């Protein structure tokens, strides 16, 4: 049985044949995955480490955000749909900007993306879905070359939602995505004028075939007595722990990084 046949059976068990309220259309999502998969496997040569940490339950998947365009999110989602024993469609929480765009907003929601909103996140976790968040936000993905792989400070909203829904945090580090666009300069003022989150200027228009390693860390459990209405100071220690965990995974990945040159030689 192929990856996609297994996925189809698993998704039908989970969602039936209908769309879910956030617009996910399982058949469409699988069709999209079939198109994306050759890029995932051959162009970006994605390798996933730490699959054994993922059990069949809802997670708040927290990742670093790199690579100027959210390809890292698509690759993580493809990994969760095709590489796990119990495949699933991860629900990435996306920028309001993306959700309102013609064609792209529709395509992303049919593939599983959901507007990044507190109520959406809580409702999805309540329904047993796993959500993917990038708590660095736009400052994480839109970095100049000199800041590559520097983790930006996490916002706290995701932690409050994880506490409120008793979901474990699954830390993830993506290594290799910053090399999609090796030389980048951000036109911040122009982006502000155009009312778009970021406007990177790069030497290459199409992402380079940088090999990608996705590191999945051990789930981080939050203390049961911690309230989702706790003071920011009480959450700080957990935010720091999660940031530290993702930074460690990133550094480990950078030590074992595969380069574009190595791939070309191969």
């Amino acid at each position: 049985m192929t990856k996609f046949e297994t996925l189809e059976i698993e998704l039908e068990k989970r969602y039936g044949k209908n769309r879910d309220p956030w617009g996910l259309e399982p058949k469409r999502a699988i069709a999209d995955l079939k198109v994306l998969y050759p890029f995932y496997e051959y162009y970006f040569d994605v390798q996933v480490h730490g699959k054994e940490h993922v059990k069949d339950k809802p997670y708040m998947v927290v990742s670093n955000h790199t690579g100027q365009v959210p390809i890292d999110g698509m690759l993580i989602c493809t990994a969760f749909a095709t590489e796990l024993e119990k495949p699933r469609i991860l629900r990435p929480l996306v920028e309001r900007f993306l959700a309102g765009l013609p064609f792209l907003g529709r395509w992303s929601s049919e593939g599983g993306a959901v507007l990044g909103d507190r109520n959406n996140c809580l409702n999805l976790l309540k329904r047993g879905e796993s959500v993917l968040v990038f708590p660095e936000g736009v400052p994480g993905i839109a970095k100049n070359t000199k800041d590559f792989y520097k983790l930006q400070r996490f916002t706290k909203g995701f932690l409050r939602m994880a506490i409120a829904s008793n979901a474990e945090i699954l830390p993830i580090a993506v290594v290799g995505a910053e090399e999609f666009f090796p030389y980048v300069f951000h036109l911040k003022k122009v982006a502000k004028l155009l009312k778009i989150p970021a406007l990177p200027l790069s030497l290459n228009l199409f992402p380079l075939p940088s090999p990608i390693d996705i590191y999945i860390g051990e789930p981080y459990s939050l203390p049961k007595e911690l309230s989702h209405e706790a003071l920011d100071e009480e959450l700080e220690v957990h935010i720091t722990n999660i940031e530290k965990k993702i930074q460690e995974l990133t550094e480990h990945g950078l030590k074992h990084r595969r380069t574009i040159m190595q791939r070309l030689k191969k």
Partner: protein
Amino acid sequence: MKSVLIIGIHGALAKITAELLIKKHPQIRIHGVDSRTISDVPLRSQLTFQQMKYTRTNFEKIFREYNFDTILHLGRLGHSRATGNINKRIDINLVGTNTILELAHKFHSKKVVILSTHHVYGAHGDNSMFLKEDSPLRGSFKYAELRDVVEMDQMCTNWMWKNQNQIETVVLRPCNIIGPQIKNSITQYLKTSYAPLPIDYNPMFQFVHEFDMASIIVASAESLKTGIYNVAGDDVVSLHEASAIVGMRKVKVPIILVEQLAKIMTPVWKFPSYLIDYLKFPVTLDNSELKKNLGDNIFRFSSKEALELLKLN
């Protein structure tokens, strides 16, 4: 319930509600009013009706005469028929409603049910799914023509809390009401062949069948306590799916052309411009408050079933 005033009796929903009330309470006395020419009202001994201007004098006269204990305000003027006549809408939706509320208090009515709409929340790209009743009312942020709809809702809810110790008031915010008799914009849209369908957007929709809506209005009048309630079932359907279920051929075009086509088709199909945003962004409602008070089995038809019934018609 002994004596009921139904405002907007010409509307299909009001007629179905009147029928249901008569069936459940054979001793009831219903008086229906409407500013439009009234036609096709079921002939029942319990039901009288009159066409009248929504003036204070006219309302005072009927309040004195009939001694209403329950007021069902289903007469909010929609936009599809009154496009371009904002003065008439403000007069009916705001001044008229204010008069009705004042008189209900003055003449010691026990219950007021007001039919508002989910349009008060507004269709925005950043709407989360399943909006609760306390979500901000952003309907008029982009479109001034929705101002009276939002203001009417706010006026009613303010009045409701102010007078909660004297009179029970229920404000209902239903999702899209559809059915063979309803002639609102969304029903017309779904039933119109070759109406434009955006190819670049596919928002999620909720539909309530006209019979279910009328049953909920009756249940609200009977037993729902003071408050604001979203009215929607549990299932949601995408716009494209809804369109496919009803089975009318649509012209699939990018959203920027939908508005232009809507203007061209105005003579045969009145589609208010603010509704274009409802074809782009979802406005789905959380129904937990209604279900908590009326139970889980209040809907006979799901969204899909309501659409299938529309197709049969």
